[in-house]
């Protein structure tokens, strides 16, 4: 049963990482324009370097 000592924290950390990533995306308004984001990947703009703020 000693394996539990590793497995439980591992499962919690992995799940927690997913949760944190989702909350980050939500706060950064990544779900603002799902259709636009799907379309934007087809354009050549900013292919070489990201847009500067």
């Amino acid at each position, binding site marked *: *049963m000693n394996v*539990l000592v590793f497995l*439980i924290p591992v*499962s*919690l950390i992995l*799940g*927690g990482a*997913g*949760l944190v990533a*989702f*909350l980050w995306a*939500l706060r950064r*308004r990544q*779900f*603002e*324009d*799902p*259709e*636009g984001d799907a*379309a*934007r990947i*087809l*354009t050549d*703009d900013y292919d070489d370097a990201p847009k500067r*703020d």
Partner: protein
Amino acid sequence: MSLAEVPSPAACGACAAAPSGRDAAVATGTLLSLPHIHCAACITGVEGALRKVPGVNDARVNLTLKRASVDAPGVPVETLVAALGRAGYEAHELDAALLSGTGDRASRDLLMRLAVAGFAMMNVMLLSVAVWSGATDATRDLFHWISAAIAIPTLAFSGQPFFRSALRAVSAKRLNMDVPISLALILAAGLSVYETLQSGAHAYFDAALSLTFFLLGARFLDMRMRHAARSAAEELSALEVPRATRLTDMGEEVIAVAELRAGDLVRVRPGARFPADGVVSEGASEIDRSFLTGESLPVAAGQGDDVHAGEVNLTGLMTVRVTAAGQDTTLARMRDLVALAEGARTKYTPLADRAAAIYAPAVHLLALFAFVGWVWATGDVRFALNVAVATLIITCPCALGLAVPAVATAATGRLYRRGLLVKSATALERLAEIDTVVFDKTGTLTEGRVDPVGLAAHDDDTLAVARALAEASSHPLARSLAETLAERGIAAARVEGIAEQPGHGVEGRWQDRRVRLGRADWTEAEMLEATATYLDLGDGAHRAFRFTDRLRPGAAEAVGKLEALGVEAMLLSGDNAAAVADTAERAGLSDWRAGVRPDEKQQVIADLAAQGRRVLMVGDGLNDTAALAAAHASISPASALDAARVVSDIVLLGNDLTAIPEAVETGRAAVRRIRENFGIAAAYNAVAIPVALAGFATPLAAALAMSTSSISVSLNALRVRR
């Protein structure tokens, strides 16, 4: 209007008000609506065209919402719209102030709580499965402790919407569905912690968390759907950016209507709405008052006449001295009246609350009875408490909590795709109870446009001259006449020196005779008892062109279908009797009343309600707003005045009225499904309650009962979509 194309249901995740960072800088700029963009090339095209305009710092397209936000301080909106027009994109300015971000923020908040609940549920469920498959002693206790450490903070965070709503209901001495839900959550968590402390076998952390997760999920979907409908309705209002042209010593300037003051001189072009109440100081024209009075015929107005905000100037350029602006206009005063009339509808108790009022006391008494019974029978308080809490959890608050939002989401989504924006949460339930529908005429049953009739009675010369004269005017009757004649292939006669006399008609010379098309007194013709325009060929004979209101497509069909559904239809209009009778006959309505003033409309609705009838009001004008607010349910077309759309439960995009009987049918189907869902939940309870009372319920049984009942309820709700 292009907005009649229903935006995609996904058009809800976002809004104009951005709280921070770079987005905020863009959002403080101008918002444009781009109704026709649909692909990646459109995004680059629009952004490229906007960035080329001098003074534009940044532009960002949101394809989901079909909007662009432009950061361009000091650049007039017309320049941006024109630049996009040259690039081939239709654009309209949006009033950012009217696009509130509150619904969006609320749904993001709910989504965050949902995500946390989902994470916690998955982890706790894993641990619970281990316990159910036979973990014992120290391992079981450890798993319970970890579960508690995850579940308690999660419930405290994710359960807040339920706790808050339950607290509000209880402090108002009411019962809603959130009361039993909150109680089940708190008791389940409390008992589980106690059992864990005692190294007990049963903990209900997983049940409490999945209850939270499922219910939050249903609530989120319901809210998102209605938010999409509401933001589409808001966008209709935001498209009408209130601007006025003020005359000053320096010349004309375009300002926001809010800046208008009494005493200002404003110029109103043909086709524009008057921005404020005032007196005509210069110019003569005809005015469309249908929004205020329901009259379909334009009224002549000249120097010294009163005009009101919301009326439309039809033919001539006018200068108006403002007498009342902003909150003092007739329009605003009518709106305030409506706000007072609205109380009646808020008293409506939704089905879910009515069900909760029966369910909550029954379940809580049952749990209490189980507790007392087991203490009396065995003297074991801990076991009795376990049975009582198991009863509370197993009596399916989940299925009951899902019963309404799942159906509402499916039904609202179906109507949304059909072009009906359901704004109110209880609109579907109220719509289902309708037994009488009251239509307004002008702008609702009719398009607010007219068609000439009996053209065959005139000879070719008459028609040719009529077309030549009619083409020179922007008066609605002349426009309709010219269009119809053009469609019939009648060439215009050669009429020289055509000039429009605002408020009277059009005059010209044809074969050396003075010819006139216009009002009866001006052409010296005999006035007819119907909407008509008159032609004088200078030969002493008088010719009249009669017009009839153009029905909206599907008007007669909609009335027929409504009657087939057992709904009585009637027509209430402020227009004259002849016009109303004609429209009623063509739409297949036998019950009509003409010349009804706005307050009388409201009275008619109130009288019908006093007879025990549930009235659906369909109207578009300011004269309908009080009636719309007083009715049991209300629908207004997208072309309606802002004030009318705001008080309506449902906004109808597109032109086709057959959507109205469909909405009633969908409402009835939704209520049927909701009742079935309550039935399904009750059926599960009939099996589960005896088991729980007998003390045989385990956390595994509770989890199974909860999942199966929730799934059956959700599947049943999906049937509304067909």
